[in-house]
C-alpha cells in the first residue's frame, strides 16, 4: 500500500514539475526554479536534522557554488551551466572536506556555532575583499550556455528550468541511496544514541564527515543554480540568515522525508514572495510565526499533514475493500 502511494505521488509530483514552464506564468516558473535550486542545499541540512544536529552555516557551501559562477563569468567570461554545476559541486565538496575535518568532532550547540563561525568568516572575506568579489555590489552571473549552445533568449528560462529539474531529480536519487546505505542508517541512529553506534563498531566521526562532504556537494550545486536564476551574486549568500532559511525550509516541509524539503522549499519561496509583497517590512516576522507554530504544533512539518491524510484515505480504502 505504502509503495503504491509513494509511486503515485512521485509520478504526480514529477508530472507537475515537468509542466511548470508550460502551464504557469513566468514569474511562477522563476519561483519554482529558485525553490528547486535551494531545495538541494536544504536536503543537505535536513540530513543533519535527521541526525539531531542543526547547522547555521551551510550557506558557506551555497556561496562557494554561487561565487564559482561569479568568478568564472568575471575572469574567463565562461558561463556554461553544465560545466559549472559539477565544478561548483566539487568545490563545495572540497571546502566541506576541509572544514569537515574540524566539524566532525563537534555536536549540538558547538556544531551549530562552529558552522556559523566558518560561514561568517567566509562572509567577512567576501564582503571585505572588494577588488576580488565586488563587495556588497556583488558579481553578475550573466546568461548561461549549455555545453556551448546558447539558446534563444526567450527560451533560456525553459532550458535552465529543465536542467535544474534534472539535477534536483538526480539529487533526490542520490539522497535516497545515501539514506538506505549503512552510513545513512547510522546517521539516523545518531539522534538516538551515539555511543551505541561506536559499540557496534562504526565511527560516528566518519559518518558525520561523509555526510558533511555530501551536504557540501548538494549546497555547492544549489549555489550554482541559484546564481544563474537570480543572476546576481552577493556576500549575503554566505550570511547566517541564509543558513537559517535552509534550516527553516527543512523544518517547514519536514526533514524526516525526502519530499518534505521539496514541499517546504516551494512553500517557502511562495510565502516569501507574498509576504514581502503584502508585508514588506514584516516578512521575517511571518516566517518566524510560521516556524514557531510548526515547532510547537507540527514538528514533523507540512509533509506530515499530507502523509497523515494519505494514510487515513489509504486505510478507508483498505476498509472499503474488506467490506
Amino acid at each position, binding site marked *: 500500500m505504502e509503495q503504491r502511494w509513494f509511486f503515485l505521488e512521485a509520478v504526480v509530483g514529477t508530472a507537475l514539475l515537468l509542466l511548470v514552464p508550460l502551464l504557469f506564468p513566468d514569474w511562477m516558473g522563476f519561483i519554482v526554479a529558485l525553490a528547486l535550486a535551494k531545495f538541494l542545499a536544504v536536503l543537505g541540512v535536513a540530513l543533519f536534522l535527521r541526525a539531531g544536529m542543526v547547522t547555521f552555516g551551510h550557506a558557506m557551501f551555497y556561496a562557494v557554488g554561487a561565487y564559482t559562477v561569479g568568478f568564472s563569468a568575471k575572469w574567463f567570461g565562461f558561463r556554461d551551466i553544465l560545466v559549472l554545476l559539477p565544478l561548483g559541486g566539487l568545490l563545495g565538496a572540497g571546502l566541506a572536506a576541509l572544514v569537515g575535518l574540524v566539524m566532525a568532532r563537534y555536536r549540538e*550547540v558547538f556544531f551549530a556555532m562552529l558552522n556559523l*563561525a566558518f560561514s561568517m568568516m567566509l562572509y567577512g572575506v567576501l564582503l571585505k575583499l572588494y577588488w576580488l568579489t565586488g563587495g556588497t555590489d556583488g558579481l553578475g552571473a550573466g546568461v548561461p550556455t549549455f555545453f556551448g549552445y546558447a539558446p534563444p533568449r526567450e527560451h533560456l528560462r525553459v532550458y535552465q528550468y529543465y536542467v535544474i529539474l534534472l539535477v534536483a531529480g538526480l539529487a533526490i536519487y542520490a539522497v535516497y541511496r545515501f539514506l538506505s546505505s549503512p552510513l545513512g542508517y547510522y546517521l539516523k541512529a545518531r*539522534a538516538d544514541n551515539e555511543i551505541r553506534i561506536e559499540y557496534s563498531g562504526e565511527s560516528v566521526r566518519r559518518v558525520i564527515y561523509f555526510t558533511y562532504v555530501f551536504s557540501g556537494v548538494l549546497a555547492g550545486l544549489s549555489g550554482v543554480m541559484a546564481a544563474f536564476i537570480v543572476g546576481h551574486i552577493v556576500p549575503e549568500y554566505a550570511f547566517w540568515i541564509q543558513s537559517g532559511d535552509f534550516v527553516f525550509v527543512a523544518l517547514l516541509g519536514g526533514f524526516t522525508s525526502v519530499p518534505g524539503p521539496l514541499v517546504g522549499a516551494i512553500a517557502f519561496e511562495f510565502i516569501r514572495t507574498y509576504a514581502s509583497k503584502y508585508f514588506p517590512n514584516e516578512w521575517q*516576522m511571518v516566517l518566524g*510565526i510560521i516556524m514557531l507554530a510548526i*515547532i*510547537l504544533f507540527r514538528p514533523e512539518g507540512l509533509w506530515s499533514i499530507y502523509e497523515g491524510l494519505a494514510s487515513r484515505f489509504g486505510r478507508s480504502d483498505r476498509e472499503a475493500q474488506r467490506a
Partner: protein
Amino acid sequence: MRLLTIIVMDGAVFAAVLFLLSVGLTLVFGVLRILNVSHGGIYAFGAYMATYLALKILGVGGNPYLTYLMLLAGAIIIGLIAGPIIERVFLRRIYGSDQHIMLLLTFSIFLILDDLMKLIWGTKPLFVSEPYALLGQFTIAGIPYSWYQVALIFVSIIFGAFLIWAVRGTRLGKIVVSVINDREISQAIGINVNRIYLVSFTAGALSAALGGALIAPTIAVVPGFAVDATVLAFAVIAIGGMGSLEGAAIGALLVGLLRASAVHLMPEVDLVAIYLAMILVLVVRPEGLFGEVELRRI
C-alpha cells in the same frame, strides 16, 4: 606607543559593550542549557525602548539628566516583559527536547522580535546623544574619548562583579548552582525549579536589555543591528566557555582587544579575526577557556 594606547582604550570600551551583551546569554545557557538565539533581539529591543523613552522625555522638555533614568527604565521594561513571556509561553513547552528544537524555537523568536522592532519604531535610525554628550570628553594620545565610554567600562565591571556575587554569595545563587548541577535532585529537595528557570531567564533578558540601553547613546539604533549582536555574543561566550560568567568577561576582553587591534592594524580582517579566534579556541579547547567538560552519557 600611541597606537598601543588607542588599541587598549578602544578594546576596553568594546569589551565592556560585549560583556554586557553576552553575560546574559551565558547565564541563560548555564541554567537552562538553551542557547538563546533571540538574545540579540532582546538586546536591540532594549536599545530601541531606551532611546525612545529618552527622546520622549527630551521632547516634553524634561531635564536632560533624566535621560539616564529613561535608559534604565527602558531596559527594565523590556527585560521584565520579554523575559517572562518568552520563558513562560514558549521555552517552557520544549524543555527536555533535543538541542536543535531549542535552537530553532529561539531562532524563530529572534525573527519575530527583529521585525516587531521595525513595526513599532519604523525603519529610520533612532539616536539620542544627550547621555553621551553630557558627561563631556577628554583626550588620550590625541584621540578624544567620551567619559560616557569610561562609565560604560565601570558599569560593566560593577555589573559583572554583582552577578558573580549574586551567584556565589547569595542563597538564591546557591540554589541556582544546585539547579545547574542537577535539576531532578534539586526538585527533590524542595527547590522550585520552574521558578529558578523563570528568574534566570528574566535575569538574562534584563542584562541583554540593559546592555542595549547603555550602548544605544553611543550608536544610532538601526534595524538589523540585532543580527550582528547575536553572532558576536555567540563568539564571546564560545571563546570564554558557555555557562561561565568569568568566561564571558575574558571572552569579551579578548574579542574586544582583538577587534580593536584588527581595526587599527588590518581593517579588512576585523570580523574574520574574531571568528578565527573563536574557531581556534574551540578546536583547541572545545569547552571554551572557562567551560566545563561535559560527560557523554550512555
